[in-house]
């Protein structure tokens, strides 16, 4: 049986799962945790840290610690989301060569897919430890409301990490799979997924093992991070009021505030009020240290974030309408994502749908589990029992003559899907046409995401309207868009892959794959070096032990033994001198010399 793992690449936490003997299960990491923080850091020595390790050093290394990178992936430089991150993130965000976004760590620029690839690689490692084998194939989840370039960028991350991503699926859909798996569910359900960075809502019809998404919507920039930001703002405001100091200007203080805010938010899910205590938070110019000491009540928190919660229910409303259903048509509401532990959110959701949300699923693990279920169903043929019918969350279209936006594939169309259209020339003797592909549902053409544009050239020169080109737009089961064009007269076909202008080029991806492999080689090498050093030190200790033994036995020192001892001591001396900066090859040599010296020494010693 082929193994396919499922990875929930979250904004805050990532999770990997696999189906074994028909049972899906989450694979815990080395620390025994079922989720791994989606945090990447680069240390002073250039080492990459991921997960818990990266999280632990975040306060002292804020500038080189990337968290919530998912909020930036696939986005265009200059978009409001990017502007927001630049303002609030301690790490350096710089423009990339395609109007995309890069982050700068220790003087080196990384693309967002590279950062995500580091997390994916870590999850792959977790799976490897468990499976005892390289996982062959992977399903990765993305927020349902991700657009084409965000999906492409996630796929690129997989490539860089050396993963074979066979399918990208939507997080709420994955959650539904986990919810309905192995049970004869026949119901209309709503999946409300509020995680660290994104909000998704999907309405599904489940029955006979078919998971049919009726409609989906969301906000890719609405999640726990925004709740935290409200608390940070509140704390910083109070501090500024009392001390006339803006804490947000101080990286270290800000990072501590961020931690405290999240912790307080989480605590307020189970208690009514909590103490926030940050001693020595800020040192003034005169050397006096300032502390932050305050209480936060659940009520205050709710007041700070209520509009965020209302934003989610508003989206729920629109999504239900899209599905042509009223709230009463929903049999079950499933809460996904860490933020749904907040009592106020549960209350608002219950009030909106008029039904108590289901507690059947684990909010942190369902998405990964669903991904594993889908992976298993895909690679194991006989696994006929689940079928996912997902939709595209955004309309797809083209810019038409005059600047209008013509939608060709409507949002919430079941994927895979395709539509073809005939384009004609608009001018006499026009030998090329430019096709601008847009994605989105905004009124104004320019408010929609520009997926790419391409020019069809080499057309027959004729009068306007005479040359006809059939252009086919398709959305794959991954939700990824492709376009092909056929000249109807000649039957000549041109295939065009629309790569969002902000996405990486093939060459860049190849280069990043290479760099990543180099890095991994380097890591392996330094691990080997470390191992050799330990080995050498062990031998040195043994030699020294033997030397002192020999010195203890007075008088009986033969010439032979003395010579052997001297040679060994000499070898130890050279080893100790070079061990710190020797190369791997030199160390190997040292190791061998040392071992031989020890052998000889011991041989002579035992004979005498």
């Amino acid at each position: 049986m082929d193994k396919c793992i499922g990875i929930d690449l979250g904004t805050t936490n990532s999770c990997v799962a696999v189906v074994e003997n028909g049972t899906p299960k989450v694979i815990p990491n080395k620390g025994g945790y079922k989720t791994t923080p989606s945090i990447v850091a680069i240390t002073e020595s250039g080492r990459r840290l991921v997960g818990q390790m990266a999280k632990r050093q975040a306060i002292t290394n804020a500038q080189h610690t990337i968290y919530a990178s998912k909020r930036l992936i696939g986005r265009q430089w200059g978009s409001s989301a990017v502007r927001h991150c630049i303002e609030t993130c301690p790490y350096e965000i710089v423009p990339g060569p395609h109007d995309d976004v890069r982050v700068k760590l220790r003087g080196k620029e990384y693309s967002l897919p590279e950062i995500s690839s580091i997390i994916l690689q870590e999850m792959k490692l977790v799976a490897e430890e468990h499976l005892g084998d390289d996982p062959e194939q992977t399903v990765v989840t993305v927020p349902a409301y991700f657009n084409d370039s965000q999906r492409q960028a996630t796929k690129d991350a997989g490539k860089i990490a050396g993963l074979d991503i066979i399918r990208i699926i939507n997080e709420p859909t994955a959650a539904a799979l986990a919810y309905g798996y192995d049970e004869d569910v026949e119901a209309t359900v709503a999946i409300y997924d509020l995680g660290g960075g994104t909000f998704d809502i999907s309405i599904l019809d489940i029955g006979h093992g078919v998971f049919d998404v009726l409609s989906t919507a969301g906000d890719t920039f609405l999640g726990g991070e925004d709740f935290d930001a409200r608390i940070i703002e509140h704390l910083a405001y109070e501090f500024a009021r009392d001390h006339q100091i803006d804490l947000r200007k101080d990286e270290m203080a800000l990072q501590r505030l961020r931690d405290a805010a999240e912790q307080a938010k989480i605590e307020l899910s189970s208690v009514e009020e909590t103490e926030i205590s940050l001693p020595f938070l800020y040192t003034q110019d005169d050397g006096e240290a300032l502390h932050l000491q305050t209480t936060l009540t659940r009520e205050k928190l709710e007041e700070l974030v209520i509009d965020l919660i209302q934003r989610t229910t508003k989206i729920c409303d629109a999504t239900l309408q899209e599905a042509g259903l009223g709230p009463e048509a929903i049999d079950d509401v499933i809460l996904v994502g860490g933020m749904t532990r907040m009592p106020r959110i549960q209350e608002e959701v219950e009030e909106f749908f008029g039904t108590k949300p289901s507690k059947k699923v684990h909010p942190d693990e369902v998405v990964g589990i669903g991904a594993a279920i889908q992976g298993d169903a895909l690679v194991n043929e006989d696994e006929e029992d689940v079928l996912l019918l997902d939709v595209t969350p955004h309309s797809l279209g083209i810019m038409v003559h005059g600047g209008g936006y013509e939608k060709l594939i409507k949002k919430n169309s079941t994927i895979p899907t395709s539509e073809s259209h005939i384009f004609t020339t608009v001018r006499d003797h026009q030998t090329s046409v430019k096709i601008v592909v847009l994605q989105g549902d905004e009124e104004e053409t320019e408010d929609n995401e520009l997926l790419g544009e391409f020019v069809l050239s080499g057309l027959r020169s004729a009068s306007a309207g005479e040359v006809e080109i059939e252009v086919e737009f398709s959305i794959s089961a991954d939700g990824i868009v492709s376009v092909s064009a056929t000249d109807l007269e000649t039957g000549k076909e041109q295939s065009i892959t629309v790569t969002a202008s902000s996405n990486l080029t093939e060459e860049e991806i190849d280069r990043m794959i290479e760099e990543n492999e180099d890095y991994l080689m380097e890591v392996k090498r330094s691990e080997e070096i470390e191992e050799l050093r330990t080995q050498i030190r062990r031998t040195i200790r043994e030699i020294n032990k033997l030397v002192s033994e020999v010195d203890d036995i007075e008088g009986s020192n033969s010439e032979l033994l003395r010579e052997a001892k001297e040679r060994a001591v000499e070898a130890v001396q050279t080893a100790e001198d070079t061990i710190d900066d020797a190369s791997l090859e030199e160390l190997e040599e040292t190791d061998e010399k040392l071992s031989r010296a020890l052998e000889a020494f011991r041989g002579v010693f035992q004979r005498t």
Partner: protein
Amino acid sequence: MIESRLLNATHEPLFDDNATPTQVSGVDIDELSETPSPDDFFLYSRIDGSTTVGELCSTSGLGRESTLEALQRLLEVGLIDMPGVEREEASSAPTSSDATSSRRETRRPRTSSSGANDLESSRRGETRGDDEASTGDSASNESTGLDLSHLPVPPSAFEFDDRLLERDDLPIERPKRRELLCLHGQLDEVNYYQFFDIDRDASARDIKHAYFKLSKRYHPDRYFQNDLGPFAEIIEDVFQHVTRGHRILSDPEQRDEYDAQLEEQEIVDDEEDVPTPMNQPSSIDMARKQDASTDIGDDNSDPDKREAAFRVLVNRGTQARQKEQIVQAAEQFRKALRIQRDVEVALEAADMLVEADLRLEQAQLFARAALRIDDKHPDAHLLMARIFDKLEERERALEHYNQVLDIREDEMARRRRNELLDS
């Protein structure tokens, strides 16, 4: 036995371009084993004993392929003779579908008429057992995975492409291949109810269940990462047809509209008892395709051919009208409108019949068709009014005269309305 004959049938009728077909005299048209389509009859009327096959192809307006196929059918039912080709005894054609075994593409069904479709589907409910028994012997070892005997062209009458069935490098079992080919071959011809195998009054739940069942069978994921060869596209087409059908049937508004179109088409078919020309897409199909079309380009697989066919039919209609062959003209216009909904053509057809005081019911259908495209078209209302006037349905005539006057000032309408009001 039937099966193997079908499978071995030549794919393209081979006639010498210089051969000259002749009409066979003394054939009783009502006794034919199968009713030829209007296209066939049109071609039949051009056969005068001196026009060659090549000339017929270039002048029939049907295109070479369709002309050759029509000739083949005429030959098979015994209406014409062709030198060098042995005429088949009409009685030797064992089933109606057999006579059409010359079609080439798999996308086309192997049926000769939608008249047969209706028969097939209406019979299904009551005498399904018989149905299966009659096709059973040839289909038993050549079965499809799913029972498709309800399709207009059931698997027993379908001509399968041997090469696709025999390829041994594909992971799809043979019955499933037959099933896919049979469905794929008639996607444009089956209505969604037939396709989903549900009743016209099926509940939302029935529709959902049928949708789930078909999705599970035809979703490309079932053969994930397998090289399906030519079946990759087939399965994709079939699946997209499933989702399209579901999109329409699961939305009450779209379903109503679709039902209305289906009904209308059936009325037209029943009234005139004229089968759907098989090489032209039905109006329902067009509606589906037009829904998605934009001003940039018409969205259908073969727009050139469609557009050309539409123009040919309109021209023929206009010519027939000039020659005062009103009924023939109406028939051509009707066919044209099936390919493309066009206000002007619909109005011309209605006007022609009203002027000639002929077939007023049909005139009404044309005028209605025009109104469906543009419900504020004054000429369409005026025609409706005149038709009802002629039919002495005063109330309704009055209603439409008022509509006309709401839209524009029209002397004739006002005069007639006042007369009606006075009387």
